[in-house]
Structure formats: structure tokens, C-alpha cells
């Protein structure tokens, strides 16, 4: 008797242990996913925050001989100012190395400063110039000065100049506005996300303008104006399938039909937006149908009972009530479209875009494609640009998703 009891309780203990193990397995699974998310966000953030600042070098520029913009060779002015800072450098190859302290664009930088402030003409002033990416990286601690000379990007002589500049307080770190206001560049210290961002926004505008009305119309037709039939089932299966088609297939469609048959301009936000619209359409239709279904039949019956036609009932009563839900679905769809990369690569939005696109038919790129392009660049400095661009992208996505949640909460009604 006791024997049976002890085996039973031993068995029970084993079963409870199994229960406990199973529960912990579940927690572990969740911790794994969330841990991965955390590590990913953490490593990208810690890499990306560097892009918020950049190093600048102070030079004393002599423009005393110049009276108008045309008089000045800006490139030369900056160069001679730099050589004047280090008079001990005379060797030609050393001079060339010295020029690498500055970003290659410093002549234009000076031109811009003088253009903004013509008072600089005719006098000698000290101005700050963007340093090259190697100096920037060194300042941020990404280049280890303790490594042997042949294994680091900065040579001993350059390092000596940097230390001289530091001791003269002629090297500073400022907030990198250029990252948010300029386009792509071959030089990491000058590259910014602005043109990519504009390209993304233009594409999203096209995408929204096409997919939102079409999505609502399709949802209305399926939900309010058609009876359940084989035909409507077929359409529904089609829509559900389109929602799960790999995005790259939409890129191929865009390439074969929108570019090659309709002949619309390659690389343009117009085509990008159209492809994204085709992709988001199923999402919007599905969300809009759900929103329409959540409007109780009593509303429709009341309107119909008052003598309204079906069309009037739908457009005056059902649609306004379903609108917040539809908008929420649209925002979620837009957020997904914003992060989409592969189909845009297919239609040629991978171009190297320096200028900000001015219209829907200009060549443009988009934020995720810019991330893809920078991720491929070998320079160490592009790593932090890539991460920072990812942070901007994720920030936008979070804002859009929060907007969707707020919208849903605000207009949520219980009938």
C-alpha cells in the first residue's frame, strides 16, 4: 500500500517537474526573441549615435585680397590656410597627406559660408571646416592609435598633426546637421539621408494616393455591394494570396510592366509608389473590410428603413463610421511600404542620388535602399551612417505605428 503511494507521489513529483520545465521553456523562448530584438537595437543604436556628431578643423582663412565672390579660388584659399597652419610641412607627398585631414568638399564649404555671409570677404577670419572621415573616426575612438602604423588608417605623421590641432584647440566635435540636410555622397563625412528621405516620402505619397482609394473601393464593393458567390470568393482568395506574395515579385512586375510596357521613368518615385501601392493594396483591402464589418447592421437597417438607397446608406453612414479603422489599416500598410527595399531595387531606385528629387518623375532613392547601399560601402565611417539611417527609419516606423494605435484608441466605439 505504502509502496504504491510512494511511487504515485514520486510520479507526481516528476510530472510537476515536467510542468515547471515546460513553463520555463516558454519563458526562454520569449526571452530569446526579445533578447535578440534588444541586442539588435542596442548594437545599431550604439553604432549609429556616432553619426550625430562630426569633427571640424579650425583654419584661419585669408580673404583680405578678395572683394567679390568671383575673385576667390575657394579650394586654393582653404589649402593655403591649411599649409599655413602647418608651415613645417614642405614635402609634396606630406602636403598631399595633409590635405586629407579635410573633407574633399571644403572648398565648396567655404564658398557656401562666404555666400551666406559676404562680410567675410576682404578680411582674415578663423572658420571651422568638416574634417575627413578618418579624422572623424579617430576622434570618435574608432581608430586605435596603439596599433602598429601599418595596421591602422592614420599614419604617424597624420596622427601628429591631429595631436597638434588638438593642442591648439583647433579640432572640435559638432552636431552633424549635414546628415539630415544633405544627399548621398562618396565621402562618408558629407553623406546625408535627406534626398533618400524625400524619395521615400514622394513614393509613399503616390502609394497612398493610389492604394487608399482603390483599397476602400474594393472593400466597399466586396463587403457592401456584392453577395457571396463563387466570384467574390475567387476575388477574396486572390487578395489573400497577393498579401503573401514575396515583395520581390512585385518588383519584377513593376519592371516588366510599369517600366517596359508603360515606359514610365526608371528610378522615379512615381514607379516606386505604384509598385508599393500594388503591394499595400491587399493589406488595405483586408483592413478596410474588417472595419466595414465592425459597423453594426442596425446602422444600415436604420438608414435603409428611412428610405435611403444602398449607396446613400453606405456613403453617408457606414463609410464615415468605418473610416478610422480604414485609416489605421492604411497607416500600418504605409509603414510596411516605407520599410520595403527589394521591389524598389528592381525598378532601379538604387541610383547614387546626391540631389534632392524635385518631383515624382526625378530619379530618386528611398531610405531603406540608401541603408542597403551604405551597408555595402567599405569605409568604416559609413557603418555609423548606415546605423543612424536605420535609427531614423525605425523612428519613423514607430511614429507611424503609434499614430495608428492612437487613432484606433480615439475612435474606437462599442456599439
Amino acid at each position, binding site marked *: 500500500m505504502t509502496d504504491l503511494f510512494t511511487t504515485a507521489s514520486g510520479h507526481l513529483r516528476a510530472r510537476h517537474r515536467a510542468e515547471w520545465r*515546460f513553463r520555463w521553456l516558454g519563458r526562454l*523562448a*520569449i526571452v530569446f526573441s526579445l533578447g535578440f530584438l534588444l541586442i539588435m537595437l542596442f548594437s545599431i543604436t550604439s553604432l549609429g549615435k556616432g553619426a550625430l556628431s562630426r569633427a571640424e578643423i579650425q583654419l584661419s582663412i585669408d580673404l583680405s585680397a578678395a572683394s567679390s565672390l568671383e575673385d576667390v579660388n575657394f579650394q586654393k584659399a582653404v589649402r593655403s590656410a591649411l599649409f599655413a597652419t602647418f608651415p613645417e610641412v614642405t614635402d609634396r607627398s606630406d602636403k598631399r597627406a595633409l590635405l586629407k585631414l579635410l573633407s574633399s568638399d571644403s572648398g565648396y564649404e567655404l564658398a557656401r559660408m562666404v555666400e551666406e555671409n559676404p562680410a567675410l570677404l576682404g578680411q582674415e577670419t578663423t572658420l571651422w571646416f568638416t574634417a575627413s572621415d578618418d579624422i572623424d573616426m579617430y576622434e570618435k575612438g574608432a581608430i586605435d592609435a596603439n596599433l602598429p602604423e601599418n595596421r591602422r588608417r592614420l599614419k604617424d605623421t597624420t596622427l601628429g598633426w591631429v595631436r597638434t590641432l588638438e593642442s591648439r584647440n583647433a579640432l572640435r566635435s559638432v552636431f552633424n546637421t549635414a546628415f539630415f540636410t544633405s544627399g548621398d555622397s562618396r565621402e562618408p563625412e558629407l553623406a546625408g539621408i535627406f534626398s533618400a528621405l524625400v524619395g521615400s516620402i514622394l513614393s509613399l505619397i503616390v502609394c497612398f494616393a493610389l492604394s487608399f482609394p482603390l483599397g476602400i473601393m474594393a472593400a466597399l464593393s466586396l463587403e457592401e455591394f456584392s453577395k457571396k458567390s463563387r466570384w467574390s470568393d475567387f476575388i477574396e482568395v486572390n487578395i489573400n494570396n497577393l498579401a503573401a506574395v*514575396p515583395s520581390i*515579385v512585385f518588383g*519584377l512586375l513593376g519592371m516588366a510592366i510599369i517600366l517596359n510596357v508603360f515606359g514610365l521613368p526608371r528610378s522615379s518615385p512615381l514607379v516606386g509608389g505604384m509598385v508599393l501601392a500594388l503591394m499595400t493594396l491587399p493589406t488595405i483591402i483586408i483592413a478596410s473590410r474588417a472595419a466595414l464589418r465592425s459597423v453594426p447592421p442596425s446602422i444600415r437597417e436604420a438608414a435603409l428603413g428611412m428610405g435611403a438607397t444602398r449607396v446613400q446608406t453606405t456613403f453617408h453612414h457606414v463609410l464615415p463610421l468605418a473610416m478610422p479603422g480604414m485609416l489605421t489599416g492604411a497607416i500600418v500598410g504605409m509603414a510596411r511600404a516605407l520599410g520595403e527595399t*527589394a521591389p524598389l531595387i528592381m525598378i532601379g531606385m538604387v541610383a547614387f542620388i546626391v540631389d534632392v528629387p524635385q518631383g515624382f518623375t526625378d530619379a530618386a532613392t528611398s531610405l531603406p535602399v540608401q541603408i542597403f547601399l551604405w*551597408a555595402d560601402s567599405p569605409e568604416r565611417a559609413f557603418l555609423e551612417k548606415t546605423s543612424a539611417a536605420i535609427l531614423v527609419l*525605425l523612428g519613423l516606423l514607430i511614429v507611424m505605428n503609434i499614430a495608428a494605435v492612437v487613432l484606433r484608441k480615439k475612435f474606437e466605439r462599442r456599439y
Partner: protein
Amino acid sequence: MAQREISLTGRKRPLETLLKLTLNLASVLAIFVTLGIVLSMVFEAWKFFQMVSVTEFLFGLEWSPQTAIRADQVGSSGSFGAVPLIAGTLLISSIAMVVAAPIGLISAIYLSEYASARVRAWVKPLLEMLAGIPSVVYGFFAALVVAPFIRMSGGQFGLEVASESALAAGLVMGVMIIPLISSLSDDVLNAVPSSLREASLGLGATQAETIKKVIVPAAIPGIAGSFLLAASAAIGETMIVVMAAGLAANLTANPLEAVTTVTAQIVALLTGDQEFDSAKTLSAFALGLLLFATTLILNIIAMRIVNKYREQYD
């Protein structure tokens, strides 16, 4: 004042008829899009199969797409055997599924059966965040952090790991599709009638036993559906493999080597400028057709299973 005519039978409203027609047209658009996809792919793939036979494409073991610059060039024809690409795709997707299937399912079980409402309210959106992060971000992370990490830890055990190993791409892709499995499985598990749960608990089974022996078996079709949908997403995923997997075709089952996939090849073939009618460019559409057909079949089966199962307990 003009007399308004009131008719009980209802007058014709041409505007409304027109409106309804427009709405119907919009809903038919979905069919046009599908048709457009199929037609454009089939059309371009057809041109490709004029140059390369279907059997060579489907069963050829070598993939090295080249277009001849001169007719007498060595290796001018290139070879278009898709087997290494298909194998690479399957290898990476299988790694992804090995990661995502157990973790996704167990997370779903924990969330639907064990977690308190408060934990659920926090964890579920966080898990879904994984699905909301653009794949280009995962690709960057895979290439920058995961691949070097795997290479390094492989080196500790004396293993030779390629810097663009299939393991890194598969692992990261697996994490990306976890929420697909967890949220669909969660829905399915919640749909299992509580009478089944209560009956099992009432007979003295522990919660874990109830889950393993009653609830999961009852939800198996739906769970299988979620696995299929996740697999289809893994097969069609592009950016992670473009950024973190290799580009050279390599027929291997070793996850530590670099392989390439169908999607990565489509991108590689179509970026940059090239003449539109070369076999190299057209082969991308043949690959696209293959990809579309595969994912379509997986999706249809998955949706069938899920829908059928839903009706069962409704």
C-alpha cells in the same frame, strides 16, 4: 417650384449604378494584379526558355549566368541550372524554420496558456515588433554582427566558417519569422474550445500535459498552416540573403558555407544596366516565376488548412 416625382418602385439612379460599377472594377483589380504578375513572368520566362531548355533550368547543377560579349568567347553561353539556387534557398529557409518553428510555437503556447493578461499585453506587441522591422535592418545586422560572431565562435572549435555563411542568414531570418508563427498559432490555440481544456484538467492532467496531449493536437492543422506561411515568407525573403548570404552558386548542405538563393540571384541579375533580352536578364524572370509558383502553392495550402480548421470549431 418643380414637382419632385416620388415613385414607390424607385427611380433609376444612373449615378449610383455607375458608382457600383466603379467599385466592382476596383475589386477586380486584385485579379488583374495577379494576372499581371503571372503574365509578365510567363511571358519573359517563355523567352528565356527559348534559349535555355526547361529541363536544363530545373535540373541543371551549375549556375553561372553570363552573357557573351563576343560570340566566340569561352564560356559564352553561361549555364542556367537552378538546382544550386533552389538548394541554397531550401538550406537557408530550413535553418530559419528550425529556429522559428519551436520558438514561435512555444512562445505562442506560453502566451495563450500561461501568461497573465498583463504580460501578454506587453510581450505580444513586442514580439510583433520583430515582424515590423524592415528586412534590410535584419540584413545589416546579420552581415555586421551575426555572421562575424558565428565565424569567430566556429573558429574557437576549429571550424572553417565562410564569412557569408548560410547559418547567419538563416538564423536571422528565423528570428524575423518568429512572430508570423507565434501570432497565428496564438490565434489558433485560443480558438480551441475551453471544454477540451477543462475536460483534460478535470481528469487530473497537469497544464503542460493538457497542452501537449490535448490542445496542441487539436490545433495541429492551424499550427501547420502557420508553419507553411512562415516557410513561404522565408523562401521569398530577399534583403537578408542579398546582404548576408553569398552570391556564388554553391551546391552544399553545409550551413557553414556560403550559398546563394533564388531571390538573391534575381536581385544580382537585375541590378545595374543590361540589355533586356539577354538570357541573363530573362533568367531572373524564370526564377521569379519559380518563386511565385512555390510561394503561391504554399500559401494556398496554408490558407485552406487554416480556414477549414476555423470552420470546424465555429
